[in-house]
């Protein structure tokens, strides 16, 4: 019989709620919580259950992933299942993180389930199969069944269908298929046009992603009186990275006081961005966040004021949705502090 390993968080393992969210990774032989349901539906034996606190996975990601991959090294398994995570944000991100890591390391399919509002969906849907799940644990059995049904196809070497047919989030992988009804492109096109002309609903065969365009701002009339702020997606932070901004697929940002600094010193500031060679930025963080130049401009009177804080996050792999949310949060602060203009430094 084929073998499966299941990942769940501390809550579903019955260890505890928020107060136990720092629970370190643990592997147990046999079934815990939702694994029972999974084991009853999947054509495999769920031999082990891995448990990890959501906070621990979120804040000590590298350590948690390393530990879990080590657990799995000695274990023989054919498929990896995580969750379902419903609309629990940190749990979803944890399921996505571990599924991706396990898939990459052991080359087995990794499957999880989340609600469409879970931020883990956008972060990981391109890497793994994420099934469309319910909002809360009331849907546990349904969500587990969807994952198990799909896992069974893989385990039994059967052909899997499209994202639509199976119910997982679209992974951005498009492939050609022959239509069972043999309806020609000409017929489909004419029918689509007639519906569009009659203002009826129609379904495009190639959905175009919505683009969130922002209008270009009006120029600042008098720069010598303007309050200018520095914002970066280049991952410049104090070396201890106090806000634990992720090195990729960021969901967090930080603000740091620079009012008493003339420049960012190497060893005090660095970049945590994983999308480029950090050597130059670590040697001189001002190449990404040009504090030195801005202070010069300030002395020369080119700008009226340099805003007290700089704001930082990481752009690589960060979803448009998260980037937009973080941007809006930062803008709110900038408006409150009467900032007139922003230099947004990317990498």
């Amino acid at each position, binding site marked *: 019989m084929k073998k499966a390993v299941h990942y769940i968080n501390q809550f579903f393992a019955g260890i505890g709620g928020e107060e136990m969210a720092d629970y370190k990774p643990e592997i147990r032989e046999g079934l815990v919580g939702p694994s029972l349901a999974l084991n009853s539906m999947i054509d495999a034996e769920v031999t082990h259950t891995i448990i990890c606190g959501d906070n621990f996975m979120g804040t000590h990601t590298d350590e948690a992933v390393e530990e879990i991959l080590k657990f799995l090294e000695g274990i023989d398994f054919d498929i990896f299942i995580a969750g379902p995570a419903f609309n629990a944000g940190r749990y979803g991100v944890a399921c996505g993180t571990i599924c991706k890591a396990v898939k990459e390391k052991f080359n087995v399919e990794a499957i999880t389930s989340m609600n469409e509002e879970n931020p883990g969906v956008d972060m990981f849907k391109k890497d793994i199969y994420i099934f469309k799940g319910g909002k809360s644990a009331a849907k546990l059995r349904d969500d587990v069944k969807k994952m198990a049904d799909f896992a069974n196809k893989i385990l039994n070497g059967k052909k899997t269908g*499209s994202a639509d047919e199976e119910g997982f989030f679209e992974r951005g992988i498009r*492939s*050609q298929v022959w239509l069972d009804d043999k309806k020609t492109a*000409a*017929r489909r*096109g004419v029918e689509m*046009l007639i519906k569009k*002309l009659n203002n009826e609903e129609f379904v495009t065969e190639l959905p175009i992603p919505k683009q969130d365009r922002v209008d270009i701002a009006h120029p600042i009339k008098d720069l010598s009186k303007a309050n200018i702020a520095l914002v970066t997606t280049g991952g410049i932070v104090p070396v201890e990275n106090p806000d634990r901004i992720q090195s990729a697929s960021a969901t967090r940002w930080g603000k740091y006081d620079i009012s008493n600094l003339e420049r960012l010193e190497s060893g005090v500031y660095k970049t945590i961005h994983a999308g480029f060679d950090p050597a130059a930025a670590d040697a001189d963080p001002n190449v990404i966040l040009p504090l030195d130049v801005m202070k010069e401009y300030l002395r020369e009177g080119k700008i009226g004021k340099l805003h007290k804080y700089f704001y930082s996050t990481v752009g690589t792999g960060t979803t448009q949705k998260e980037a937009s949310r973080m941007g809006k949060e930062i803008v709110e602060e900038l408006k409150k502090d009467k900032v007139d203009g922003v230099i947004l430094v990317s990498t």
Partner: protein
Amino acid sequence: MKLEIGNFYVKDVLFGEETSYKDGILTINKEDALAFIKEDEHITDVDIEIAKPGENTRIVPVKEAVEPRVRPDGRSTFPGVTGELEACGNGRVHALKGVSVLGVGMHYGSFGDGLIDMGGEGAKYTLFSQLINICIVADTDEEFERFEQQKKNRAIRWATHRFAEYLGNIVKEMDPETIDVFELDPILKREENVSKLPSVVLVMQPQSQMEELGYNDLVYGWDMNKYLPTFMHPNEVLDGALISGSFMPASSKWSTYDFQNFPTIKELYKEHGKSINFLGVIMSNLNVSLEQKKRSSIFVAQMAKSLGADGAIVTEEGYGNPDADYIMCIRALEDVGVKTVGISNECTGRDGASQPLVTLDEKADALVSTGNVSELIELPKADRVIGELEALARDGLSGGWSYDEILGPSVREDGSIIMENNAMFCGDGISGGSIKTMKEF
């Protein structure tokens, strides 16, 4: 304008003494036929082979496909190509149905050439596997391009057009088994019950991107690289006004057979007077520079608007760079208030994860997808090859390669092949025949 296509349904094609058509059997005297094809002194070597649906036969490199036809009143079948330049799209034309004349390289292929499998797993990749293919397998004296990746293939392409007319001649004086009638009244003189319906134009973008002449589609014998969008009657398209060129990768190509049978035109005709008022065709083109692309989109949108179109279908003979013309044209039409549907294939890469079209626009909200250029296809050896199998790997066909460190060459020693869908002859049926679509996986 009223076009009658008189149909003769061919059930079998044989070689025999007398070139004739009787009870669905088309008989060809091979010697006579070869002599006719060799009237063009540029054809240095030629054979004719017949390939039937279901056979374990592979045809490559295929350069062109044409439905055999003739005009009983003596006008040329392809005006400006096989004879004098005359208006077409009206009157009677006779057609041998269920067959096509294929132009096949005896040895050498080129970028836009394709492959057809008549049977087995490979047959599903092109609708041409369902026709009886009368293959002209030829070599020519076109030494200047023999080892070029891009070939005009003029002699072989013209041989297919001429031979299609030659075969059509057999049924010139005969009574067709059925007659299809394609008729549209002048736009301003239509019955009220038709003119009250939503008005629709078809915008066609035939391949015309080669700045050097001789590779592009022709309209009435004219190279469409030197051309601006024009309003045409759909019957002209169905009746030989356009012939296919020799540039576009095979799966995205419109062969001359596609123009003669253009499924999207036929579907629009079916709805004419019922749910739409089919105004006609805005024949556009495909271009290289951004300014050229934009100029064509301006012409198209203006024409559609001035004609009073409420809706349009835009379709492109191509993928990649032409996607820019396609999307720009759809956007230009939407911008002037014409509700538009697009029909095209996609190119999502071997892993399926690439952007499906080169440019995207939110206004292109109603698209039909006919296939994936870059799908990898592996097929076993075929018992019989018409043409030269090695051409797929050796000659720079768009979906073939001579070397790949992981996949090996497209043509293997045991006769099996691995290729991209790109080289399936008219494989993506962009003219409207495709029963494929694209889905997320």
